[in-house]
């Protein structure tokens, strides 16, 4: 008790507080007669949009209380196109949630990949019997209609990723259409101007062209025709871009042919990593000689270098695969080495091929039930127990078979 306040002040203060509250409005909500505005994400009940459900069973498996019951059957869907493959599809027969077990953790809603489960703010579903709390699909579907729209985002918040994507896509399409329309209009105008103006496609997304330069020829012509300087410049610019694009496209077509061929030859070109940052000097010189700007030439040369290098590496890899040189592909070998070390089997060490880089998993091997007798015997001799030896031997056999297959391919 502070020395300043006489004894009993605290007691009176307490009485003062309570009596002050006696005359405040009670904050009671007279529930059955009036209802509160529930928060948009109220966890009232779990609703089901059964048309979204694919019977993936994720919800039922994740449910900590095991209170979700799902039954389904498979149906064959006829092929969409003539000669296509018939598909099977899961059809939901029963989806029930036992709300006497449910603890409203919301994991099922969280985990549903197809937005079939939702939180509904509906909460008046009490029952006189516990059995009555087991609600079937129909009831859950009814609740799905009560799910409110999500609350609006805060000002300045980023839109959800999928929405942003959709907007971007729509925007792009719109721009493309505009550009096309502009091009057409330009073409018509050009016709009227007797080949004067060049169509503008400045905003075309690809191929990218360095803007800022003008087509001197067009410019001169336009000036001679008596156009204003500004107009002439912009038209010349557009003409330059157009020309450049046409040229690039032609180039790309030519290169594309090569690339397609190369891709056909190589199973997985993406696997080959090439150190970037170097340029193909030959390409560079040539482009400079052609009168390209320094930057453009450098970029093209770089791309050419990468392309060449990839091709070279692939050729090399194939060559090495035939030779059985394990050290050829560093990253692939490293992962394989660790596997071997843990195996403890000497056998597999010889099997560290470059083909590992091309993913042994890509190669299908049939007959997984067989074992490599040699590895098996060796492991048993080393004192491993029967089960481990068997599984390792099996793995060794599969690896061997894969190796053989890859070798054959390489030979071919």
């Amino acid at each position, binding site marked *: 008790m502070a020395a300043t306040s006489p004894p009993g002040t605290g007691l009176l203060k307490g009485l003062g507080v309570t009596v002050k509250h006696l005359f405040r409005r009670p904050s009671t909500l*007279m529930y059955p007669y009036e209802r509160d505005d529930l928060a948009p994400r109220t966890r009232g009940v779990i609703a089901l949009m059964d048309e979204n459900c694919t019977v993936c069973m994720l919800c039922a498996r994740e449910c900590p209380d095991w209170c979700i019951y799902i039954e389904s059957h498979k149906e064959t869907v006829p092929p969409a196109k003539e000669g296509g493959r018939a598909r099977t599809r899961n059809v939901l027969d029963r989806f029930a949630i036992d709300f006497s077990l449910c603890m409203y953790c919301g994991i099922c809603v969280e985990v549903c990949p197809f937005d079939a489960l939702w939180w509904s703010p509906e909460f008046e579903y009490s029952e006189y019997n516990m059995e009555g709390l087991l609600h079937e699909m129909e009831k859950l579907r009814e609740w799905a209609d009560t799910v409110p729209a999500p609350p609006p985002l805060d000002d300045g918040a980023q839109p959800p990723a999928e929405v942003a994507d959709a907007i971007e896509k729509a925007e792009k399409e719109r721009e493309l259409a505009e550009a096309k329309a502009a091009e057409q209009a330009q073409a018509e105008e050009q016709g009227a101007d007797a080949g004067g103006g060049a169509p503008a496609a400045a905003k075309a997304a690809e191929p990218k062209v360095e803007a800022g330069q003008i087509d001197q020829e067009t410019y001169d012509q336009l000036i001679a025709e008596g156009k204003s300087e500004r107009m002439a410049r912009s038209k010349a610019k557009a003409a330059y871009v157009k020309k450049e694009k046409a040229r690039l496209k032609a180039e790309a077509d030519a290169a594309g042919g090569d690339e397609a061929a190369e891709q056909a030859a190589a199973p997985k070109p993406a696997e080959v990593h090439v150190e970037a940052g170097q340029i193909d000097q030959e390409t560079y010189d040539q482009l400079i000689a052609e009168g390209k700007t320094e930057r453009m030439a450098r970029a093209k040369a770089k791309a050419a270098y990468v392309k060449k290098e990839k091709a070279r590496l692939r050729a090399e890899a194939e060559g090495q695969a035939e030779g059985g040189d394990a050290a050829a592909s560093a990253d692939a070998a490293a992962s394989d080495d660790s596997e071997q070390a843990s195996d403890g089997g000497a056998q597999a060490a010889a099997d560290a091929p470059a083909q590992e880089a091309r993913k042994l998993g890509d190669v299908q091997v049939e007959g997984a039930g067989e074992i490599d007798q040699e590895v098996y015997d060796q492991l048993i001799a080393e004192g491993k127990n029967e089960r481990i030896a068997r599984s390792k031997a099996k793995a060794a056999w599969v690896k061997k078979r894969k190796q053989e297959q890859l070798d054959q391919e390489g030979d071919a």
Partner: protein
Amino acid sequence: MMASLTHATTTVAQTVSLFDGFDGFVLPVILKLVFVLAAFFVLPLVGGYLEHKVMGRMQHRRGPVEAGPFGSLQLVADGIKFIQKEDLIPSAADRWVFAIAPGVALVPAMLVFLVIPFGPGVFALDFELGLFYALAAISVSVLGVLMGGWASANKFSLIGGLRAGAQLVAYELPLIIAAITVAVQAGTLSLVGIVESQATFQLFGTGINVWFVFPQIVGFAIFFVAAMAELSRPPFDMPIGDSELVFGYMTEYTGIKYAMYMLTEYAGMISMSALMVVLYLGGWQLLPGVPLPGCEAGGGLFDCSPTGIALGVAITIAKIMALVFLMVWARVAYPRLREDQLQRVCWLVLVPLSLANLAVVTIAKVVF
């Protein structure tokens, strides 16, 4: 029987109860019994309703709203519910003691109502030892609490019973001393006599008529605090101590027996408040020195017309409910004391203070 004895044995002209105005012996007795029972069963419910509502409003709630108009029949509904509930007796409990304990607590609380004057002539009995009788009856209630606490065969109940025993015996002392002080000042132990003496009491010969609460404000405070402790009302509810002892001596009680304990508590609230009204607040007087309208014939206290009687009863009950409100207010405002603080407050503060108060009043009485 007691009435006849006291009337036969005392020579002082006692004020007569309204019910003695009827002829014969049986009819007045029946009427008195009905009156006492009605007061015992109705007033605690009114007090309980007041507590529900006041507590609710102080906590930003509404209190009961559904049962009856404005929820006024909530406690009646509670009572019906308690009667319907299964009457459980723990298998390890001492069946007989467990069963009769609530009755042992309830009956003395009911007997107190016998002597409380609710208005001019509105009492069952006015005898010479009224105050002493009320205090003696209140003191017996402890026994029921101790019995219930022990018989439940439950450690929480036992500790609750023990706490109740220690608390009730301790706080009886300042309560009785404060009451005795009033009796000394009034010169009588009769409750009606005390009311009467307050109507004529003059403050130190100045001619100003006051109630005893003014010269004895310390005694009133002691009596009020001790009464709350006697009733185990918060902040003195350690015997129940629901955060530590489950529900103290009532832990094992359900149904009608539990209701009996609760009725004891609420009836105790009413009877203690009524005693305070009689001892300190001038009984059924409207204001100090103002004769009750309709009672002019009897000096503003007795021989009232029916309206005067009704007004007197209304005033008494209003005063009782005001005190009940104070108790509820204290309950909402203050947290529960610790057990040692409780005993400390009693033995180191209230008992010395009440003794000093008694000494001062006695000396003043002799001097003036």
